[in-house]
């Protein structure tokens, strides 16, 4: 018996089943296909404008910051303003994201732009989130050439752009949208759900921001929901 067969056989002996019972197989197949939702908190079930307000409050409660931009053309100014406020050099890195590639970065003045994955030497990165969850102030980012995963973790400051209409009520809605984008049962290499900047409380339970990931998380919500 291979280790796999041995483990499956022990599980089946413990459960008193053979693994071939049709009702059991049907129950599992049904659950995987129907994906029952369970308990979805009321908290996020709000009209669009209030949902953005809740998202903002929850990000701020997790020590992140949020600004609104009326239109994608305002993203460069919002980014430059934040970098100036933080006394950071006007330099960013982003991937091949169509939204970020299409904005007029020259409006931000002398902004140095690098592209692609980070090797660890960048102070600030800009990503475009796949979505966000109002319930907990959580950003959802997916890996790929558009928004490389290293940008989410290596730079000191992470600036995340999210479209207002992608800010949804709850996790279940984001999961359904992931399925819509990547197909049922399929996922990108990485889905990062990010709630606030990196932190640790491992030394005497003193909470300190900026453990191994970004010290600051700044969110730009673009457009109207």
């Amino acid at each position: 018996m291979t280790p796999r067969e041995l483990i499956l056989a022990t599980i089946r002996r413990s459960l008193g089943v053979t693994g071939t019972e049709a009702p059991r197989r049907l129950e599992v197949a049904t659950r995987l296909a129907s994906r029952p939702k369970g308990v979805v908190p009321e908290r996020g079930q709000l009209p669009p404008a209030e949902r953005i307000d809740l998202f903002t409050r929850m990000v701020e409660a997790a020590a992140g910051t949020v600004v609104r931009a009326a239109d994608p053309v305002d993203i460069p100014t919002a980014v430059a303003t934040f970098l100036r406020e933080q006394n950071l050099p006007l330099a960013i890195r982003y991937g091949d994201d169509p939204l970020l590639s299409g904005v007029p970065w020259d409006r931000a003045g002398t902004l140095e732009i690098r592209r692609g994955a980070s090797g660890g030497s960048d102070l600030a990165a800009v990503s475009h989130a796949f979505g966000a969850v109002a319930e907990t102030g959580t950003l959802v980012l997916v890996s790929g050439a558009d928004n490389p995963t290293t940008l989410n973790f290596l730079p000191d400051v992470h600036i995340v752009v999210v479209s207002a209409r992608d800010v949804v009520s709850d996790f279940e809605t984001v999961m359904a949208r992931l399925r819509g984008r990547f197909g049922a049962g399929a996922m990108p290499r990485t889905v990062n759900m990010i709630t606030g900047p990196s932190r640790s409380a491992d030394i005497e339970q003193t909470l300190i921001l900026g453990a191994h990931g970004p010290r600051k998380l700044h969110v730009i919500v673009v457009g109207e929901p």
Partner: protein
Amino acid sequence: MTDVGAHAVTSPHFKDNAKAALADASLQNALKFVEVNFAARRREVADKLLEFEALRDSARDIKDHTLAHLDLYLEAYEQRVVAQGGHVHYAVTGEDALAIILDICRKLGARTVTKGKSMVAEEIGLNDFLAAHGIAPIETDLGEYIIQLRHEMPSHIIAPAVHLTKAQIEGDFRRVHTHLPRNRNLVEPTSLLAEARMVLREKFLAADVGITGANFLVAETGSSVIVTNEGNGDLTQTLPKAHIVLASLEKLVPTLEDLSQLLRVLARSATGQEMSVYTTLSTGPRRPDDPDGPDEYHVVLLDNGRSSMLAGAFRDMLRCIRCGACMNHCPIYHAVGGHAYGWVYVGPMGAVLTPSLIGIDKAGHLPNASTFCGRCEEVCPVRIPLPRMMRAWREREFERHLSPATVRAGLSFWSFFAKRPRLYGLATAVAARALGVAGRTRGRFSWLPLASGWTRHRHFPAPQGTTFQAEWKRRLASSSKVAQPSPLGPPP
């Protein structure tokens, strides 16, 4: 069952461990943080979410359903991992898992391995094993990094270095980071964290293989999920050539919707956060167009006795999502900390799980280290009946004649009387009267024959009247005549 590597099991010495812990002033100071902060934070976020109790039921039901169909969900999960370019390895024992991991590392010519926090890696003694085979393992979670420098085991499942003071950590950093200036300031926790960040950043970038645990495995998509606050797990699994996930079988959940339910109770129960900072789903290796991520993705599924646990009285323990709420609310843990438990899993969850994994003969003291106050079960996000299972272990310990001779003798002495109610009533009445007379002047005893185990640590109060049973009888008789409040309060 696996041999647990270089970290010796000291669970059989729980009593000595506990005594030493109680006398350790800096440990006692550190434990105050746990008792006050963790419990208060959990209460606050739990109260803020209307549906928290309903979510706990939901979380329990999801885990129960998954465990009852674990063979089928494992097959579904494996199929999705493979379909997306990953590899699944099955390990019956800890040794099997170690051999599989070493083999993957050797094929890649790995010399250094970064590690995200993993209790299963502690369970199988992965670090010592890798080091013994010429591969340097580097813990990257701040707490795990600190205890690795000290060659210790975690004292808490989510706050591994909670037993240490910042001065102790400063001492360790100065001892190990000898390439840094001697006169640097490391007084504040912020400067300690900044130094760890800088030192570990180089390690992240240089590592050949990254090993993480998994909080959950999702059957629907073949994803592994890690939940962290620091971001170390993500750097561990993104930067090296290969990502190895080491996870035990019971981490499985069916769907992304089920995952959402469990995530809602995990962080709230663990750290009192609405969500941990980073919840990351990893599925397969990097895709052809991806500019970053690992080239290889391996999942090592560890059984190590869990498939057998599904059969017995301890199946419910496999619902555990390792949040640490039980230890955060445990008066015994608050008093002695994690190391006293003598192995990887501590607190009430450790008291139930450890005997299953290393045997009740070695871990017999742990299920006895409980006052049965029930707080662990009250806060458990998946409603594991921890006190009931500790009681089940005590029964087994007794049945297998593993309890100490004095305990067994005492119990048979007591049971002789307990089985003879008339004699019991007479003997206790005589004893109560005699002790009442003897202790009349001082009202307490500082020494009693055959009870020195009690009186060594506290006084024994002298009985003030008749026995409980006599008083109860009298109360029942009087309350049946006239309904008036008795000195013992209202009848049940």
